[in-house]
């Protein structure tokens, strides 16, 4: 049967076959790394990384070339590089091909994915050096890279969906990496299932797209669907429905309310995983999806409003929870939720470029923060409770410095990366008429600075609360771990300026403008000039000011280096005074309890009730028919009394009945 031999339909492509081969290499290398490591990794002992890490380094190099070609050299034009591998599902009218595309958005994503990915791989060499299951770890990590790259390279919705689920799988495998720990196994399962809840909507959205326009190719869909809306072939609510269904997928993957519950639990995974998957790359997939589907969202202001609302709410809620968590990684996890909320906020108001910009900067500084937290945890011998840290800044200097850079970046202190992207989001929200979004964003900015420096204070400053047994053995991590920290610190400092200056017309704007062109057109964004001395300057000042305020408050409460001692009493009294909000925050707004009640208790009861129904009613009916049959048999056998008289009487009775019957026939 002709399968691979079939000549692919000609797709408009630019770029040489070398470029295509490189795109394929981006996928093939990690996949091969996964396969090889899975098969022979166990026998490689200490060198379990020897296949996986080089593979990703090569991927990074190839990606750099492609990024350069796309963004800088413009070798593929505005449309980007598109090509077809083979026809995947040929089912009548419904055909799905394995098509890949590299355009500006993909390239920007590649920057984050491959760079952070590569660094996390290197970091893991040291971090996982003593874990007997490290070969599995590297295999999974490579598999994740494959899935994530597939996600950004896919050129149609179904292939995207495939990658979408595969990153979910990688996440499942990596969260549950320490499967002996029940909590890890539970967290892995939870992550996958909650993601599936989002995919439920995503899948339906894809089906809706196909039944509406009969294709799933990005370019076709992005042309046909808006055209149909404009021509009135489909109504506005349908468009909104499609967008919201797609957005359901984004909610799941990017852990937005109400599907955010999996991400904090996902911290059960090894820290490099948290850095790579649950901070820098996978959780951004939702943002990527909405950005990718911008021509669709452009047709539905209602859908965008929902995006904005969800983003805003998550943003506030997560920041509020981050205040009170004791586990260092959980603070970062809620911070991630909050920052993702920022991005959705931006998407919702139509500020797509700032959203992606923030995605990039956040990818680097949050990756840095997570890896830093990993280094801290490593240093204090797998302790994650911040109440049992403190004063570490002298002992693990490199970690401290890099994490401080990350914290400043996320807090939005100029000129670090976070400042530029966050400021653009806030500024655009305000200028696009979403004052309330801006206001909330400002509040969250305060909160961000506050919880980040609470974290810094409790971890690095003040007196040491480290377990006395561990205390003498605190040590800085090996170079394979600190190296990536330092390397990540560089973009955390610089990338905001590099991409975002001058404001609203930096490199990132130049790159992404073509991608978001339809959106901007549909939303009629005015191209007002940037006024540093006008409104923009004011907004900028406001956001910097509030961040600084947050930072100062945190310093005051939790200390800074040795000069400012922490004030535990003040913290305690504040906690006592605000006991209600404190408890709500500490208990994560009771979402986990609600879910437990709904899905474990009520769901379990329903399932058991249905099982009972199955056994006793449905099967009971089946067995009942059998018993009835047997019972009737038992009853009927009683007529066989063994006595000839009774038999004769029966015969005579039968005769009588028959005779009467014939009488009726005669009478008729």
């Amino acid at each position, binding site marked *: 049967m002709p399968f691979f031999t079939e000549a692919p339909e000609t797709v408009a492509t630019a770029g040489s076959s070398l470029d295509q081969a490189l795109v394929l290499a981006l996928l093939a290398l990690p996949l091969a790394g996964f396969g090889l490591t899975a098969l022979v990794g166990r026998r490689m002992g200490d060198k379990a990384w020897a296949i996986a890490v080089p593979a990703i380094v090569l991927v990074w190099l190839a990606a750099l070339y492609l990024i350069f070609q796309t963004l800088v050299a413009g070798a593929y034009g505005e449309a980007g590089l598109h090509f077809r591998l083979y026809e995947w599902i040929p089912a009548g009218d419904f055909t799905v091909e394995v098509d890949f595309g590299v355009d500006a958005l993909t390239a920007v994503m590649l920057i984050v994915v491959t760079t952070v990915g590569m660094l996390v791989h290197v970091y893991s060499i040291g971090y996982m050096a003593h874990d007997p299951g490290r070969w599995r770890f590297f295999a999974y990590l490579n598999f994740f890279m494959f899935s994530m790259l597939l996600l950004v390279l896919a050129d149609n919705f179904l292939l995207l969906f495939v990658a979408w689920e595969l990153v979910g799988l990688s996440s499942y495998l990596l969260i549950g990496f320490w499967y002996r720990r029940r909590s890890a196994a539970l967290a892995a399962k939870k992550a996958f299932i909650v993601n599936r809840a989002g995919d439920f909507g995503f899948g339906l959205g894809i089906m809706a797209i196909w039944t509406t326009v009969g294709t799933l190719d990005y370019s076709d869909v992005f042309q046909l669907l808006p055209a149909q809306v404009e021509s009135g072939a489909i109504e506005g609510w349908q468009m909104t429905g499609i967008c919201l269904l797609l957005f359901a997928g984004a909610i799941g993957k990017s852990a937005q309310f109400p599907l955010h519950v999996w991400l904090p639990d996902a911290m059960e995974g090894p820290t490099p995983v948290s850095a790579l998957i649950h901070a820098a790359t996978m959780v951004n997939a939702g943002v990527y999806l909405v950005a990718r589907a911008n021509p669709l969202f452009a047709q539905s202001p209602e859908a965008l409003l929902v995006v904005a609302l969800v983003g805003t709410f998550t943003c506030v809620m997560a920041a509020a929870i981050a205040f009170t968590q004791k586990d260092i990684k959980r603070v970062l996890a809620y911070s991630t939720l909050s920052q993702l909320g920022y991005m959705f906020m931006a998407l919702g108001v139509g500020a797509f470029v700032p959203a992606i910009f923030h995605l990039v900067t956040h990818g680097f500084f949050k990756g840095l923060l997570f890896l830093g937290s990993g280094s801290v945890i490593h240093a204090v011998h797998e302790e994650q409770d911040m109440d049992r840290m403190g004063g570490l800044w002298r002992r693990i200097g490199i970690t401290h410095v890099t994490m401080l850079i990350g914290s400043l970046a996320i807090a939005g202190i100029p000129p670090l990366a976070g400042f530029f992207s966050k400021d653009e989001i806030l500024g655009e929200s305000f200028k696009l008429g979403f004052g309330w979004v801006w206001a909330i964003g400002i509040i969250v900015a305060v909160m961000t600075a506050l919880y980040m420096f609470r974290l810094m204070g409790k971890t690095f400053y003040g007196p040491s609360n480290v377990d006395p047994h561990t205390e003498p053995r605190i040590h800085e991590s090996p170079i394979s771990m600190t190296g990536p920290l330092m390397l990540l610190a560089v973009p955390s400092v610089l990338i905001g300026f590099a991409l975002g200056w001058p404001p609203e017309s930096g490199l990132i704007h130049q790159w992404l403008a073509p991608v978001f062109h339809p959106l901007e057109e549909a939303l009629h964004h005015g191209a007002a000039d940037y006024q540093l001395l006008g409104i923009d300057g004011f907004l900028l000042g406001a956001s910097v000011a509030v961040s600084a305020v947050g930072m100062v408050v945190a310093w005051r409460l939790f200390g800074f280096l040795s000069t400012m001692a922490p004030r535990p009493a003040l913290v305690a009294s504040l906690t006592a005074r605000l006991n209600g909000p404190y408890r709500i925050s500490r208990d994560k707004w009771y979402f986990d309890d609600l879910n437990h009640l709904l899905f474990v208790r009520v769901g379990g009861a329903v399932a058991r009730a249905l099982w009972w129904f199955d056994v006793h009613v449905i099967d009971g009916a089946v067995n009942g028919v059998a018993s009835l049959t047997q019972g009737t048999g038992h009853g009927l*056998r*009683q007529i*066989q*009394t*063994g*006595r*000839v*008289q009774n038999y*004769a*009487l029966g015969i*005579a009775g039968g005769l009588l009945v028959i005779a009467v019957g014939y009488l009726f026939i005669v009478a008729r």
Partner: protein
Amino acid sequence: MTQSLDAYLILASLLFTIGTFGFLARRNAIAMLMSIELMLNAVNLAIVAFGAYVPTLAEDGALIALFVMAVAAAEATVGLAIIIAIYRNRRTPLVDEYASMRE
């Protein structure tokens, strides 16, 4: 003519019914056998009556009756043999005690 035939037939039916009741009511195997003979005689009466009144049966009626008698005799023989056999086993001619097989 027909009225007379009817009379015979009614008589035969009565005899048959009496035989039937006898068969149903008696518990003694021999008595039941005798009731059956009575029923067969009732049939014979009917057949002979038909022979007498239905022209096309003029030849056959008596012939059939003779056959029936012969068969009745054979039946009685076989029956008595069987009844004797079970009497040897059970020491009773009462059929309602022959109920070791039932249900």
